[in-house]
């Protein structure tokens, strides 16, 4: 019979124990995991990129649900263990689930420290430890407002940078005089502070929190008061002042604990059948807060479980990096000043570079790098190896490329590393292992290397080094810019697929999937809508739109709302309307009891809360008044906003309203990779906000200045100027050609500003402004495709198309089945 292994906690440390165990001895144990968090094992380190929006939760999962099934592991999510009975050898959860064990691993991680100032338990005061904390912060950030982060260490600064990214006003309160004082010396701390301040994060050092003040109704926080009486407004307070091992459960079970659970080098607790790994552990008087040593512990524990001899866990120097995009920071070893210590410092203020090496007895014992961290790994290696540096002292600070007078080649630093040099600190992966895996297993992409070696798979800061190793090993064959596949159903990128659809004349979704060897039977919700668009765009006359591959809004021609009702937005060309149109809208609202009528941000009127069954009738009435669909739901032309221009305005230089209406009437109905919004302003005062649109026009005395690639949604970006043209007709031709170019090249869901950045603004200008022939060809292709697109989808449905979409298949009476 297999032995029973029970694990308490499903964090990064035990996850690694199982990886190693299953790699060598998959059938030794029946494994049961109790996890207080209601989820699978994920990369806690990467919560900051999730907070800042650079990653999604799905991307940081280490073991997905399928992994547990494949390995026969029983994962009990949301089951917090409250008791370990060492005599009966059982553990029991809060909900009463009990499991027997032969071997038990305690991996309860650590708990964030909460400073017990008055107000610490108000709603709106969060810590930073797990996904729930991130979700709560994101929720708070949605309404903007002010955040105060207490603690200027690694976690606090990552939280601050993330919340700032999400649009909050952020203040960091730090008790000590400089930031991250445990990892950085004062000089680097100051550099870091000014970088963060330049990003708009307010930093107060030497700030001692006295109290968190509630809102009058106690429903949240209002401000943080410091000991010196200063009050800082706050809608959200994040406490990131440190962690302590979560050892209470083990202590209650009678295991020996101090600050953490005491273990020997074999990771055994005072009970020989119980191991402890991770942040809950105390070893040789030390507790840990970074994954590198925890993974080392995990390796030892796995060997122990297999009964393999091993050297046991030993404490070694640690390196830290801050994961805030655009801030390069590296520290390792010990950099306190001392009588016997010397230092080498390099400052390059203009380039924002600071490097400091601390030496003792001709060896490096500490390193702090700011602004240029490329050599961090090499210095760290010298610390661990205890290399005698007396021979290369003069050039040491310039790193391996110079040390010893070697040639100055950016690759040289990596090439110079010995095989046992550590590349990935988190996972303890050395150069030799990576190079070996690349050549033996024929790995050619970063993802492959991650999957096989785990290098760069945790915090990701060594990605650059891993890529350099790949270039060194593979030479030309390695392309770091290799693009990612469209979705899990194919290895091809959007560009490849678009090119092959044209080249192989693929004209249906099944044809694409067949010819391009799709891996799933009928695609997924990511690729099907993309393929449908590419085919509509490339074969406007031949392709039969596949409605089942469109998102519901485009299938029902209205916007689905959170309660399953729909909203209806008719076109109001250029934002103009009339008494008869308004009267017709008023009548429809009354007749169908429409609960909300709202003026949209796009200069027209939205009717919200309409039942799906009523849509065709609503459209029929609107159609009688001359309205067509506003495509407020479409990856297509949305609105063309205008200002009053020469019609009325004393500053107007051209007929901006007229041009807006002309563009909208010409281009409505077209499908595009993502939505397209435009605006025309009558003068540079820009009342129609044309300079943050996908395409905008600023009218001037001498003509029409065309703008493109602006954004004002998830990102904010002013437009680029395409060029100036003299007449309205020229303006229309240029705009249409630009949009057609985007239609033909854009990736599905990629707005114009992202597409233009990808291919280069100059390239767009060259093709649209400078190359009249190209421009004309784009224009003609757009006009051709409009022949098949300018059909009002509402009137089509009023006359009976897609009837099934709008009514239930059957209505069963309540008695029917009784």
């Amino acid at each position, binding site marked *: 019979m297999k032995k029973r292994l029970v694990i308490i906690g499903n964090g990064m440390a035990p996850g690694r124990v199982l990886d190693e165990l299953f790699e060598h001895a998959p059938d030794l144990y029946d494994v049961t995991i109790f996890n207080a968090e*209601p*989820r*699978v094992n994920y990369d806690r380190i990467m919560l900051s990129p999730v907070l800042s929006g650079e990653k999604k*939760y*799905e991307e940081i*999962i280490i073991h*997905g*649900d399928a992994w547990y099934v494949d390995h026969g592991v029983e994962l009990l*999510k949301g089951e917090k263990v409250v008791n370990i009975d060492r005599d009966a050898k059982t553990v029991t959860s809060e909900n009463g689930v009990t499991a027997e064990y032969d071997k038990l691993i305690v991996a309860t991680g650590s708990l964030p420290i909460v400073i017990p100032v008055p107000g610490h338990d108000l709603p709106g005061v969060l810590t930073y430890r797990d996904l729930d904390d991130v979700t709560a912060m994101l929720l708070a950030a949605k309404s903007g407002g002010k955040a105060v982060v207490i603690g200027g260490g690694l976690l606090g600064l990552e939280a601050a940078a993330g919340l700032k990214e999400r649009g909050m006003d952020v203040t960091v309160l730090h008790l000590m005089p400089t930031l991250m004082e445990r990892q950085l010396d004062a000089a680097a701390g100051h550099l870091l502070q000014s970088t963060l301040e330049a990003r708009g994060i307010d930093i107060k050092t030497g700030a001692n929190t006295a109290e968190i003040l509630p809102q009058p109704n106690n429903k949240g926080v209002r401000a943080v008061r410091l000991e010196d009486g200063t009050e800082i407004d706050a809608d959200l307070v994040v406490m990131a002042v440190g962690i302590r091992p979560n050892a209470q459960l083990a202590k209650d079970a009678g295991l020996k604990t101090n600050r953490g659970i005491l273990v020997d080098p074999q990771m055994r607790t005072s009970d020989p059948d119980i191991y402890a790994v991770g942040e809950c552990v105390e070893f040789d008087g030390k507790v840990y807060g970074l994954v590198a040593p925890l993974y080392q512990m995990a390796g030892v524990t796995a060997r122990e479980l297999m009964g393999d001899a091993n050297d046991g866990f030993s404490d070694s120097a640690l390196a830290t990096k801050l994961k805030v995009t655009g801030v390069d920071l590296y520290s390792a070893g010990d950099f306190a000043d001392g009588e016997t210590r010397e230092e080498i410092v390099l400052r390059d203020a203009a380039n924002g570079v600071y490097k400091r090496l601390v030496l003792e007895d001709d060896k490096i014992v500490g390193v702090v790098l700011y602004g240029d961290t490329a050599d961090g790994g090499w210095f760290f290696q010298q610390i661990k190896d205890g290399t005698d540096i007396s021979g290369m002292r003069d050039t040491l600070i310039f790193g391996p490329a110079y040390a010893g007078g070697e040639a100055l080649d950016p690759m040289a630093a990596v090439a110079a590393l010995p095989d046992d040099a550590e590349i990935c600190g988190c996972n303890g992966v050395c150069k030799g292992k990576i190079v070996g895996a690349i050549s033996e297993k024929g790995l050619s992409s970063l993802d492959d290397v991650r999957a096989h070696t785990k290098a760069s798979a945790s915090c990701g800061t060594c990605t650059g080094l891993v890529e350099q190793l790949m270039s060194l090993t593979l030479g030309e064959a390695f392309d770091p810019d290799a693009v990612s596949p469209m979705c899990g159903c194919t290895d091809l990128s959007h560009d490849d697929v678009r090119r092959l659809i044209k080249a192989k004349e693929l004209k249906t979704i099944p044809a694409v999937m067949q010819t391009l060897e799709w891996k*799933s*039977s*009928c*695609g*997924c*919700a990511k690729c*099907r*809508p993309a393929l449908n668009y590419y085919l509509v765009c490339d074969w406007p006359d031949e392709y039969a739109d596949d*409605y*089942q*591959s*469109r*998102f*519901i*809004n485009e*299938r*029902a021609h209205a916007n*689905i709302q*959170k*309660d*399953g009702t729909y909203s209806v937005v008719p076109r109001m060309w250029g934002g103009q309307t009339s008494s008869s149109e308004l009267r017709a809208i008023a009548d429809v609202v009354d007749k169908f009891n429409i609960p909300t009528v709202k003026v949209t941000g796009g200069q027209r009127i939205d009717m919200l809360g309409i039942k799906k069954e009523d849509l065709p009738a609503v459209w029929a009435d609107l159609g009688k008044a001359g309205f067509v669909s506003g495509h407020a739901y479409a990856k297509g032309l949305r609105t063309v906003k205008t200002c009053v221009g020469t019609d009325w305005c004393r500053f107007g230089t051209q007929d901006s309203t007229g041009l807006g209406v002309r563009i909208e009437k010409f281009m409505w109905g077209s499908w595009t990779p993502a939505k397209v919004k435009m605006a025309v302003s009558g003068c540079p005062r820009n009342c129609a906000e044309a300079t943050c649109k996908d395409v905008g026009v600023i009218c001037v005395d001498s003509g029409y200045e065309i703008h493109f690639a602006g954004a004002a949604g998830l990102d904010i970006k002013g437009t680029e100027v395409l060029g100036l043209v003299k007449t309205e007709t020229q303006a229309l031709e240029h705009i249409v050609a630009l949009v057609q170019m985007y239609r033909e090249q854009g990736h599905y869901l990629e707005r114009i500003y992202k597409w233009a950045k990808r291919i280069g603004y100059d390239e767009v200008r060259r093709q649209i402004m400078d190359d009249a022939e190209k421009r004309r060809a784009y224009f003609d292709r757009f006009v051709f495709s409009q022949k098949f697109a300018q059909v009002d989808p509402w009137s089509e449905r009023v006359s009976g198309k897609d009837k*099934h979409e709008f*009514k*239930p*298949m*059957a*209505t*069963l*009476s*309540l008695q*029917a*089945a*009784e």
Partner: protein
Amino acid sequence: MNQEADHMNAMTGNWISLGALDDIPLRGARRVVRGDLAIAVFRTGDDSVRAIEDTCPHRKGPLSQGIVHGDCVTCPLHNWVISLETGVAQGADEGSVRTFRVRVGKSAEVLLCADDLDADVKCRA
């Protein structure tokens, strides 16, 4: 009067006929309502039928309005993927919806198991 409603309640043993298979678009779904209960009846790419409660376990999105792929549907509101066979949310998301037995009858009509509805009456009572 709604033509399809004529099909309603035509009982054959414990199976209720909902209408013709062709009333459901391939890789699509239709709603069937019964009092407060809404059921989404799906027709997958390989022409099999499935029925699950039309209420996403996340925030009650109408699953019948989603995109059907393989034996799953992606919810129209926030893209959860729900298995049509088991009603269980896939990937990292957690939750499930009720499933109902459904099959295609001899004359290509869609049949829903009435017993599964009774269970509903009981559990709601």
